[in-house]
């Protein structure tokens, strides 16, 4: 069966339509069939709809995403309550340990992202992985720094990713590999993204899963939940009305 390749982290400026169109067209040409663009929570619906229309034109599926940067656990809970039913993907940028732990155990969080270059604040350890493996969250890894960094910074970044990937594997935590880019020239083909993950120790099967099955599964699961027919996990309305 043909794989559906996905990039769940394209940083596009909604207001800059030319660049957005350029990046989306390039993503489609490189073989992606599903993309997600993070929007600030206050983004207007018509702006999202415009971007969705651009994606439809490029024959690429579009998923809405919100990146949360809460400073406290309470702020995270509040934002999740407010936004979960409005968006398909919720990613939490864990900037402190309390938020990271809360995000890992909350079933409403889809992706856990950690500060890319601040290695002391990458709180992904065994405890975090254990919590996340019991919920539905996946670890998101952006490959952009692998392209942008050089020398000791890249070495440090790779070593940190290698440690995190090994922990995720140990706890059977899904890994989602995204580009995290905002320019078309930094986009890479899905298989090239998978090849870049070999640098931090993913095997071929897991690498391909991280750019296809895992992200697609998150979007599918959330679309199901957001549909009007969803009642609870495993229960949905099939028929309504007098003939039931």
């Amino acid at each position, binding site marked *: 069966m043909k794989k559906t390749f996905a990039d769940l982290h394209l940083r596009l400026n909604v207001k800059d339509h030319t660049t957005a169109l350029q990046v989306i067209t390039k993503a489609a040409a490189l073989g992606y069939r599903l993309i997600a663009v993070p929007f600030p929570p206050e983004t207007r619906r018509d702006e999202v709809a415009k971007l969705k229309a651009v994606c439809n034109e490029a024959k690429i599926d579009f998923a809405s995403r919100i990146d949360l940067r809460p400073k406290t656990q309470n702020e995270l809970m509040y934002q999740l309550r407010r936004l979960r039913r409005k968006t398909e993907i919720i990613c939490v940028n864990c900037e402190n340990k309390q938020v990271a732990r809360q995000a890992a155990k909350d079933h409403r969080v889809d992706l856990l992202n950690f500060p890319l270059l601040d290695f002391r604040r990458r709180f992904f350890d065994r405890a975090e992985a254990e919590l996340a493996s019991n919920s539905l969250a996946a670890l998101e890894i952006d490959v952009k720094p692998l392209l942008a960094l050089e020398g000791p910074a890249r070495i440090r970044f790779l070593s940190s990713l290698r440690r995190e990937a090994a922990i995720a594997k140990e706890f059977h935590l899904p890994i989602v590999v995204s580009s995290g880019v905002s320019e078309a*020239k930094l986009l890479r*083909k899905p298989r*090239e993204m998978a090849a*870049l993950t070999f640098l931090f120790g993913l095997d*071929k099967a897991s690498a391909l899963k991280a750019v296809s099955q895992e992200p697609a599964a998150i979007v599918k699961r959330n679309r199901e939940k957001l549909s009007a027919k969803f009642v609870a996990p495993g229960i949905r309305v099939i028929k309504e009305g007098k003939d039931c």
Partner: protein
Amino acid sequence: MDAVWSAVAKLYGEYGASLTSLALIDYDVEKKTAVIRTSLATVDLVRASLASITSVAGREAAVHVLAVSGTIKALRMKVRR
């Protein structure tokens, strides 16, 4: 080819680069496509290195793999398809 060698050496070091047996077979200036040879065991290593290239001769660039094959004949057929 310098960009490719340099990317491989940056990511895997000189020892890693020496394992790849990299060689340029063909380069089409008009189509901007190149055929490069590498040993089977290091295909993924070279693929990762090519993906990490962000500039060639001081100008921003990206390198994409069009096809991988065991023989040049099969490779050309794949690319034509």
